[in-house]
């Protein structure tokens, strides 16, 4: 069975290490915050100028001056700090953010990522995505393995305009966990009930399969 969005987020959450500063993109990445393992203390960065993002506010307690990069109302946790957008991207660029999780439309076997533009469609902009992928030391992509037409989104080369080159380190898709290595996608885990063959058939880019591939446990 393919993973649900929640399970993708849950699997990514296992990559968190104690003490990490983490930037979570819009969509599935945001859900990662709900699955932080107990005993693991992380600080969430929101690139619009906040370290120490907390959960959504209780009804009636929303504050229009306090939003995340997805423009959602949020709260802060004790120890939070506000800063301007230059410092925010400054700390990202300087490698102070330990992990960035974001979505992708395509990832290439070299780690290129495309997630901001589909030619011919209305283009809304890259927001902070290009800064994040160019700067983060550790980037995990949360994505569907195939598009709605059933075509693989893990490619030899991206077909869409790039967001960044050679930057993705790991992919957690709905059917697999893969590292992006110098030699291509390296299969690490498969979703419960998903066979290696299925992952192979759905991965257009170079796939490395070595030894037994364990099944994810939830």
């Amino acid at each position, binding site marked *: 069975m393919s993973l649900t969005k929640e399970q993708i987020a849950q699997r990514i959450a296992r990559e968190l290490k104690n003490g990490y500063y983490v930037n979570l993109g819009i969509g599935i990445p945001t859900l990662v915050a709900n699955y932080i393992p107990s005993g693991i203390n992380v600080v969430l960065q*929101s*690139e*619009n*100028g*906040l370290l120490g993002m907390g*959960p*959504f*506010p*209780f*009804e*009636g*307690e*929303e*504050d*229009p*001056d*306090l*939003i*995340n990069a*997805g*423009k*959602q*109302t*949020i709260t*802060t946790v004790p120890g939070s700090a*506000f*800063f*301007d*957008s*230059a410092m*925010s*991207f*400054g700390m*990202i*660029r300087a490698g102070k953010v330990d992990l960035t999780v974001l979505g992708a439309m395509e990832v290439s076997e070299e780690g*290129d990522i495309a997630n901001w533009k589909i030619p011919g469609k*209305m*283009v*809304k*902009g*890259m*927001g*902070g*995505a*290009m*800064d994040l992928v*160019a*700067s983060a030391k550790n980037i995990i992509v949360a994505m569907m393995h195939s598009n709605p037409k059933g075509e693989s989104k893990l490619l030899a080369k991206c077909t869409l*305009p*790039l*967001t*960044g*080159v*050679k930057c993705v380190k790991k992919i957690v898709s709905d059917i697999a966990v893969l590292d992006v290595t110098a030699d291509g996608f390296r299969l690490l885990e498969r979703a419960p009930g998903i066979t290696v063959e299925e992952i192979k058939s759905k991965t257009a880019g170079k796939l490395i399969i070595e030894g037994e591939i364990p099944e994810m446990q939830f």
Partner: protein
Amino acid sequence: MNKVVSAADEAIKDVFDGAIVMLGGFGLCGIPENCITALVKKGVKKLTCISNNAGVDDFGIGLMLKQRQVKKMISSYVGENAEFERQLLSGELEVELIPQGTLATRCMAAGYGMPAVFTPAGVGTEVAIGKEVRQFNGKEYLLEHAFDADFAIVKAWKGDTDGNLIYKETARNFNPLMAMAGKITIAEVEQLVPVGELDPNNIHTPGIYVHRIFQGSNYQKRIEQLTVRKAK
């Protein structure tokens, strides 16, 4: 060094057709609502607007778009509104999309007198087309130039009569960066206080950067994405 003007109309009175105008805010958070209303009323045209976003159909910069006052938007993320999309697709509106960190840093560069900066954002993408690429320590960077804006219009939480500004929470965003970057900087504030009332240790924008300040009114502070948890 009193910088106080009476209201938004007076503050933006010399914004001219064709001017390059920076507008603070992230989404609808921390935008200079009063000045935008005044710019719409004034009807000034052919503006180049530097702002992270372009408002929504009926609020923020969207109001200026509706009046066709904007010739060009320089933003990182736009298109939360239909009129914007129509103008863009019909060629009435020019849009330059740049990475958010690059946008922020080009503002800061202007405020710090740095003519250009290097950033890795956009290397290897279409953003890099026509730009100088340079390697430092084995990593590639793009050379990006400081903005040169005629006006910076920002919104702060508190300000004093000398133009010192303090922002609240994530309504800070681009505001202090743009405040540094305008040839003329105009600040509207929720609370205008007498000089000496703000703690000098906590000033985000020193008054030297601010040319005009006024007490804003009737802030709507619209929320774009209301997300809440159910009762406690």
